[in-house]
């Protein structure tokens, strides 16, 4: 039984009329993993999660959660599973606490006894008696996490949990997810933010237009990623570009400077060269991280599939 995957989705397809939202995807999440499903808007992430919760039915393929599937086990397949899809929604005229108590009634077991604990866990104790209609977006997200934790889940599914949060909220949400993951919980997280997934997840599936373009560990993804890019702005960008090429760096010209890509030590040496040559350095910023660059390469390439060097079927390196 311990070999049973937390999530085992095989060849899932879902179409709405002529639009294929999810096209023959396979996603497998082991127990205890923090797994990211990454992709731009419209990639099919939410459709996949909705199928996982039984909110929509796949046209073909199989989907098991801890060995249970909707066709065979119905709502029992959600035993030990909790989370939210897109932004969590509640009854606006009721307080946060009242909403949780109502939802606990639909969970059964000892869920009702956990209301105080989960409110404390997400930092909403002080506002628990306020009506949800007065909650900020971030507070609703946290209430969504609280409502999921009421179920004392083994698998926590979070769809874009940091969406709409301010920087402090994002930091707190990531810390909470990490702490939950440290307890042995399996976490399945969807996001369009590579940085978020990189910080939280062990493994990742990258989707694009309903298909999987890559899956594997974050570590393996890092190996595939290009070098870090820097944006350099000087008083003489043409001369700076020559210096960069002389160092073997990849250079592209932008409106407000140069994009330079290469090993960090070579970029450091280039900066020294520029200053030694008497060119004034006006700006030096890190562009997208290597993983973000890879993410854009994977998801913005031609619809036919992943970029050269990656296997279309497995998403891994050829």
């Amino acid at each position, binding site marked *: 039984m311990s070999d049973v995957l937390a999530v085992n989705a095989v060849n899932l397809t879902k179409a709405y009329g002529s639009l294929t939202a999810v096209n023959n995807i396979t996603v497998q999440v082991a127990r205890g993993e923090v797994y990211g499903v990454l992709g731009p808007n419209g990639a099919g992430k939410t459709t996949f999660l*909705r199928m996982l*919760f*039984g*909110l*929509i*039915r796949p046209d073909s393929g199989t989907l098991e959660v801890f060995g249970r599937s909707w066709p065979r086990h*119905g*709502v*029992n397949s*959600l*035993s*030990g*599973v*909790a*989370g*939210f*899809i*897109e932004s*969590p*929604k*509640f*009854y*606006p*005229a*009721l307080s946060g606490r*009242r909403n949780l108590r*109502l*939802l606990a*009634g*639909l*969970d*059964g*077991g*000892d*869920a009702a006894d956990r209301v105080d*604990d989960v409110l*404390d*866990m*997400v*930092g909403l104790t002080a506002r628990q008696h306020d009506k949800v209609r007065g909650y900020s977006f971030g507070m609703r997200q*946290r209430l969504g996490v609280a*409502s999921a934790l009421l*179920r*004392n*889940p*083994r698998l926590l599914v979070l769809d874009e949990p940091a969406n709409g949060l301010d920087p402090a909220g994002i930091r*707190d*949400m990531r*810390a*909470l997810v990490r*702490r*939950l993951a*440290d*307890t*042995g*919980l399996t976490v399945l997280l969807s996001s369009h933010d590579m940085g978020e997934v990189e910080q939280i997840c062990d493994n990742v599936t990258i989707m694009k237009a309903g298909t999987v373009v890559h899956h594997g560990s974050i570590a393996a993804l890092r190996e595939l990623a290009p070098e870090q890019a820097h944006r350099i702005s000087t008083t003489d960008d043409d001369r700076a570009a020559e210096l960069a090429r002389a160092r073997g760096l990849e250079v592209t010209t932008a409106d407000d400077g140069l994009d330079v890509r290469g090993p960090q030590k070579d970029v450091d040496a280039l900066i020294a060269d520029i200053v030694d040559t008497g060119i004034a350095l006006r700006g030096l910023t890190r562009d997208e991280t290597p993983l973000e660059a890879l993410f854009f390469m994977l998801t913005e390439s031609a619809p036919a599939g992943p970029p050269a060097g990656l296997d279309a079927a497995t998403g891994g390196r050829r």
Partner: protein
Amino acid sequence: MTAAVPAVAPAARRRPGTATVLRWEATKLAAQVRSRALLIGAVVVPIAVVLIFNTQLPPKDTIYGRHIHTSGYAVPLFVLAFAHQWVLPLLAALVAGDIFANEDQHGTWKTILTRSVSRTQIFWAKTLTAVGFNLLVLVLLAASTITTSLLVVGSQPLPGLSGQLIPAGHALPLVIASWATAVAPVLGFTALAILLSVVTRNPTIGVASPVVLGMIMQLVGSLGGLNKARRLLLTTPFETWHGLLTAHPFHAPVTTGVIVSAGWLVVCLAIAYLYLRRRDITGG
């Protein structure tokens, strides 16, 4: 979000039964200002109506209108005849037409369907809540109307529809039975509102459409040459109490009305149930 996270134990819980889900829906309904106002209105409005009509000239063109000052038993029948035109369909639809669609309005289907209850449980909990609420409203409306009428006008004998005089002792059961005939069509309209609530996912349409459809049915029913079709309309059972108040009462229309209403109830609920079961929850 700084509190310690407790260790996660494997989830082992018993799923809530349909009675628990029913209690959940009833709690939710009881928390709504509208539903509480409706219950209060079902008691208070008839008192106001009876008091107002008691000071007006009797409306002689309406059934029992000419008797509302001479018999307290006539007033509830006059109110019933008026209420069935659009008030009862509206009362039936106010909660039933909204009870499913408001989950769409709030985007909460995904919230409740990711818990430990099935769509079937949710469907029956909502349906039974709407049915129970509407029956309660009807009972309060009838009780308030009858009680107020007897207190304000008095318990004089009731003129029958074939000219006979019904003694006060017999009139009360007949008035109650007349109001009871409204139960079946009210349940039929409840099911119709539930169907529209499920299918349109729009509370406004769920509430307003049964009233409009009821008016159209009354219009169709008033047309000549449609006797067979008239029997199948959901508004016709509202008039079957007339047969109870003749010198030689006839009950066949009441029976037919119950069967027709039950047919509407079964068909509407079956379609609504299948629709909800098969629906992809994509919104919110």
